[in-house]
């Protein structure tokens, strides 16, 4: 049963105003088979669907269900278990909370709203698809566990907070917004970035040579919150004529002590 299920209709705004039967009959693609939503889920109703602030709860393992919350504009969603790829793609408002893990392309091309994942996330959190230059534009993504590679690729605005570790290339090509990785990073942070900031609270093996070290700052702002440092501040990517900023925790990265020589 590992066949992926694609359904871009599982969202509060898509369900709002529909009867239970209509929702059950929603078209889903299971591999190359066209099925109904109630072939995959037991669909139950609690309360009234007429309410604008609808909550959609998905209980169980939804890790093969793709595009949950696609183009969501209102209400909230709760996934009690794992969610599949493309969770909250292009969502513009509302909230999604996942108690398990999220897949790849979590919040891709997101415009607003909030996604919170209690477990880990896959690669390309808040990114866009390959070839495109329009990543996440707004909203917040919070991952309590770890994230994969290329967090916030081509990000244009918004906030991504990874409470665990991240893979390589966080903030690749980003031009605005904030990425805060609380623990370690796999390296090559901010490659080809032209703006925005990437904050790494843990260890990172090396900074790309196309970044200039500017100063040491005591704290850095993420939204309203001030994160205590101190942090090395780098700007780049020089290859792209960029003005992005990397904040690297000083205490966790003693091997970057050489940066101090350039700051005296």
């Amino acid at each position, binding site marked *: 049963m590992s066949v992926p299920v694609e359904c871009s209709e599982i969202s509060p705004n898509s369900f709002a105003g529909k009867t239970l039967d209509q929702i059950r009959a929603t078209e889903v693609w299971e591999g190359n088979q066209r099925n109904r939503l109630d072939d995959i889920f037991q669909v139950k109703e609690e309360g009234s669907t007429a309410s604008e602030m609808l909550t959609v709860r998905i209980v169980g393992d939804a890790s093969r269900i793709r595009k949950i919350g696609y183009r969501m504009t209102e209400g909230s969603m709760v996934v009690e278990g794992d969610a599949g790829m493309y969770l909250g793609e292009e969502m513009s408002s509302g909230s999604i909370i996942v108690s398990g893990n999220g897949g790849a392309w979590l919040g891709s091309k997101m415009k607003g709203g909030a996604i919170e994942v209690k477990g880990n996330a896959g690669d390309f959190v808040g990114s866009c698809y*390959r*070839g495109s230059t329009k990543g996440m534009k707004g909203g917040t993504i919070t991952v309590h566990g770890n994230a994969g590679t290329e967090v916030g690729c081509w990000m244009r605005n918004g906030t991504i907070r990874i409470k665990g570790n991240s893979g390589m290339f966080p903030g690749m090509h980003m031009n605005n917004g904030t990425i805060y990785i609380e623990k370690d990073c796999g390296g090559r942070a901010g490659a080809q970035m032209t703006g925005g900031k990437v904050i790494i609270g843990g260890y990172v093996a090396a900074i790309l040579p196309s970044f200039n070290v500017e100063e040491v700052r005591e704290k850095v702002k993420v939204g309203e919150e001030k994160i205590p440092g101190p942090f090395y501040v780098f700007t780049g990517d020089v290859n792209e004529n960029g003005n992005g900023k990397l904040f690297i925790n000083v205490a966790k990265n003693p091997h970057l002590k050489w940066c101090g020589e350039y700051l005296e």
Partner: protein
Amino acid sequence: MTELLLRSGIVFDPLNRIRGEKMDLAIRDGRIVETVSSKAKIIDASGMVVMPGGVDIHSHIAGSKVNSGRILRPEDHEKDAEKRTSITRAGVGYSIPSTFTTGYRYAKMGYTTVFEPATPPLKTRHTHEELDQIPIIDKACFPLFGNNWFVMEYLKEGKLEECAAYVAWMLNAVKGYAIKIVDPGGVEAWGWGRYLKRLDEEVPHFAITPREILRGLCKINKLLGMPHAIHVHTNNLGNPGNYLTTIETMDCVADLANSEKPIIHITHVQFTGLTGNSWLNVGSGAPEIADYVNKHDHVTVDPGQVVFGDTTTMTADGPFQFLLHKLSGNKWVNVDVEGETGAGIVPFRYRRSNYVNAVQWGIGLELMLLVKDPWKIYLTTDHPNGGPFTSYPKVITWLMSKDARGRVLARINKNARRRLDLPGINREYTFEEIAIVTRAGTSKSLGLKQKGHLGVGADADIAVYSIDVSSIDPSRDHEFVRKALAKAAYTIKKGEMVVREGEIVATPTGTTYWVDPKVSNDLMQETTASLSAKFEDYYTVRMANYSVEENYLESPTKIEVPAEV
């Protein structure tokens, strides 16, 4: 024996001087005939416009750079995917459609013949593989000669006849249709880190100038008796002030003109019709170019009209594409440099609010409207460089309706609007003129005797649009006309109905035309003998393995022409 009778359509057939007459068309076995038997299937076209199937003279639909463009732009496909049906295959657009989708979309607009205007000879096997995968439409490709080492060496040594034999050999070897020249000498010079901006600058290591290459190939074109003129993308493309280069290019072969037919076709003039000396003060050189075209009969042009929106630019002019990549900051790839040419691909978005883009949009339309004789200008968007071919209906409404173009004009960059002559031009194309610039003129220019008209004996390639000319005024009802042109009521290809009500109903295989100039045996033997030595020196492929065999093509049609040498 299949017979069709297309009844009571309003026919526009400029080559046969039929200007919107109500008449029946009889079709038997893929050809137009005088009459058919009573068993013929009848198609009612009353209240509809009937034209020959569209013939596109310049559209990048196949070949190595088109495919590299597809690979470069997954985001272009993602936004425009088509599901398969019981008849058609799945595919994607938008600016570089997959092969099948290309065929379907052309047929839906009533186009039945499309020419791929730039194929690097070494990679033309690939071009044919893609052309074979494009259903419905007839097609052909133009091999690139403007930066070919052998051509430059022959011409430098003054060996015009040997060079002609070489071109003939190459056309036969790669199954090409016409001589395409892109940035003559300039792509080669760029390979050595230099830009050629003028016709009299020398190509490094070859000691030959673009002027000599153009004149040489123009003479060869005539010697070989080619059906089409030399198809030229000028030097200095995309640089402010280059309208002078365009006029100079047209003029450099003026003395070779003959009275029979035009000898040079300048393509996508919009890119080479810029006045000014920097991006801040570029303007439209269309009035000057149109004036030259109006006064000279040896030249034809096409505009490469810009359509605002997202597209992919791709040309064999690697130097220009590198410049565009630097200007726009967009990603690019450089391909075909290992072949006899070069090419670059850059995604690009033409913006109304951008001064330069708005001027480019205006140049194309000014040119279309200021060239008085529609037989000298053909409608193109240089697909996908100015915009995808699917925007032809939109461009046609801009030509047919001052109101339609006025609506766009009102929303473009205001400095551009002030500098353009376009707001003062009142000309509106008639259906007959549209039929000339999209079918009759192009097929005449390409020397396709079976296409572009509906006379007895012509291929039964017919487009029927549900436009009632008695009640529809294209000047006012441009929105209606655009929709009708985008979805042909019927498209008939070789006597078979392929589109009904804008939907594909059959997908026959079109033919691939190629030209085989018959050069004298002695000359050909002499030339190929010396060529094989050069192949050993220059090529990674043996000469015997280089040629694309005719049976490699799915459905080839050879056009034999007697050469003078």
